[in-house]
């Protein structure tokens, strides 16, 4: 078995953040959490996680801008963006920024875990 992966989860909304971190902890042990894009970027620089899962709409740097900044640091960084259905413009922005993986809200956690597995096994 590989070394346990480190996952950075970025979400500003308290309830969602809480639920998602509990869900992620069901399968993964090492999870670090940030409340906005700025903090997320700092934590990425500090901990160099194997995977970043981020919400899009957040104060102080949104998920897309944060992802762009991360990809500039590490062009092979693995990022999953969680977007709402009505945020089509963010999806295209995410694609432009070179983000290949995104999941729609409301999140189906089976889909989320298969995406995580797929990305991490690559």
């Amino acid at each position, binding site marked *: 078995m590989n070394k346990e992966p480190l996952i950075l989860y970025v979400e500003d909304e308290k309830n969602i953040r809480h639920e998602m971190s509990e869900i992620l902890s069901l399968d993964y042990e090492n999870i670090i959490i940030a409340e906005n894009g700025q903090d997320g970027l700092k934590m990425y620089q500090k901990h160099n996680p194997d995977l970043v899962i981020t919400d899009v709409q957040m*104060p102080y740097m949104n998920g897309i801008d944060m992802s762009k900044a991360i990809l500039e640091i590490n062009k092979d960084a693995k990022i999953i963006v969680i977007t709402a259905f009505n945020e089509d413009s963010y999806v295209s922005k995410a694609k432009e920024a070179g983000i290949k993986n995104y999941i729609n809200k409301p999140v189906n956690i089976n889909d989320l875990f298969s995406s995580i597995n797929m990305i991490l096994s690559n």
Partner: protein
Amino acid sequence: MTKQSILIIDDSKLINNSLKTSLENRGFNVTQAFDIAQAKAILLKEEFTYALLDLILPDGNGEDLLPFLQIHEKIRVIVMTSDRDRDRREHLFSYGIVIDYITKERHFHDMELAIVQLIERISTNFSLTILVVDDSNFMRNHLRILLSKRGFQVVDAINGKDALEKIKKFKIDATMVDLEMPVMDGNRLVTAIKRDKANLLMPIMVLSGTTEPEKIARVIKNGANDFLKKPYVTEELLLKIDKMMQELKSQRLLREQEVRFGLYNKAIDEAAIFFKLDKNLKIIYSNQALSSILANGISITKNSNFAEYLDETSIDSLKELNEAINEFKSYQNVFELKSDNLKSVKIRLTFTPLFDTNKSLYEIIVIGFDVSLLHQKEEILQERVEMETKRNWDQNRMLIQQSKMASMGEMIGHIGHQWRQPLNSLSLMFQKLNRAYKKSMLSDELMDQSTQKAIRIIEQMSKTINDFRDFFKIDKEWQNVKLSVVTEQACNIIEPALQDNRIRLTVNEDKDIVIPCLKNELSQVIMNILANAMDAIVLKKVKDGEIIITIGHNKSSAYIIIDDNAGGIPEDTLKKIFEPYFTTKEKENGTGIGLYMSKEIIEGHMNGKLEAYNTLSGASFKIYLPLKKENKEKSL
């Protein structure tokens, strides 16, 4: 016209003064003399139109003054005397200035009246010309003087032929003619004059010495009006002339009135419906206007009954008409008449009953106007007003309906915003429990904790529903509420949407401003303005979007000012934002009803004022509301 002047010569102070007052009141300039000496002195200095001469004076006979008066050629002397001696009277006329005698009466009033009537008669004689036809030079001169003094214009002729030429040349009103004359005698002249229809009214008086009754009869038969035998008494001649000319005057007046009456008749005939009824309401005359209305131009059958033409709806009016006529009154009403082209005709008719001196009805004159067109116009107008009212009402209903739909859309949008996150949380929670259970990791603690949390979230969600329901509830009555509470209500609902768009909302408020208002309606207005501000900030991609609400009050009003920093509203748009259906937004976003309804609510429902301005950074909406409800029945 200059004032006529009169010299009164009478020694009786009573008579003299009484006459003076009376004549002055009638507009004459009056001078008084009480004896011959005084009169002479006055006559040397002044001229007069008339002299009233008493014959018995203290210093001599009034007749002695006549030569003095004769100096003034134009003077007309009226002699006041109780002397009825015929020869003496005749003698005084020979001075050529005496125009008549007034008999002294016991009652001054009668005497004054006689004098004034005589003077008035003379003044109306100036427009009349009398032709004097006589072969005697003396007679012509005598009559000329006499008639001139009487006020008439005089033309003379020496025989019948000469007279006919004068009649052609001058406008002759009356003729005095001798019978025996060379060339053409009086009888032939009278016949010739009366042959011309233009002279039918001309009075002719024959003056002749003839005693042959058949001659007199013949000339009267041929058209002469009167006969006076020569030699005549001047007073009698004057009386006859006066009578003849008075008749002429009244005949002319009658003719004039007849002509005028004819013109009136014609004017009414042309302008209105005009007909006459006899006492049994049978039509005895009807003009073209009535015929053309009732029977398309076919004239009304004479003696047909007026009631035959009446529509059933006017039967009651007919009864009223009969009652009015029985009371000698005229009657006016709108009658509906049957017409042969099935369309009924409405006519406003005025019935004027005419009664003879015995108060028996002999004719009813009816004048009327067709008012069908007027009624029709009124009906059309009425219809148009009704249509317009209905259209306005429909439009208003549509506006309210659309406004409701728009509000509902907004509400759903806001509920979406409010519920998106709790729904996401719940969704995640169930999936979490499911996964934990499958992985045998579902601990009691996780289950309890999650259940508690789910209940909390769901409670929160149902509170949101209650808030919204309250918010959109129709205000049943005015309530005294804190403006801060009303504002908060609106803010709470829009806050999630503002947060999504990263717009900061600040509320600055005076503490505890309580006003009577329709709470939810005011809340909706505030939210509408907030939503507009938010949309503007999003549309213009304003960084650091900000909305500031300021609540305050002055002496009579409380105000809520909502400022944004979206750059403001273009001036030409600003004028139109309160019009219904005006919108700057894309089709799916704006209904254009929000601000119109907001203004309606603030100004129409709550007696306040809603205004929009531009500030340096954006738009500013000001809501003013009276601190006290003007209406006395203030509900708490």
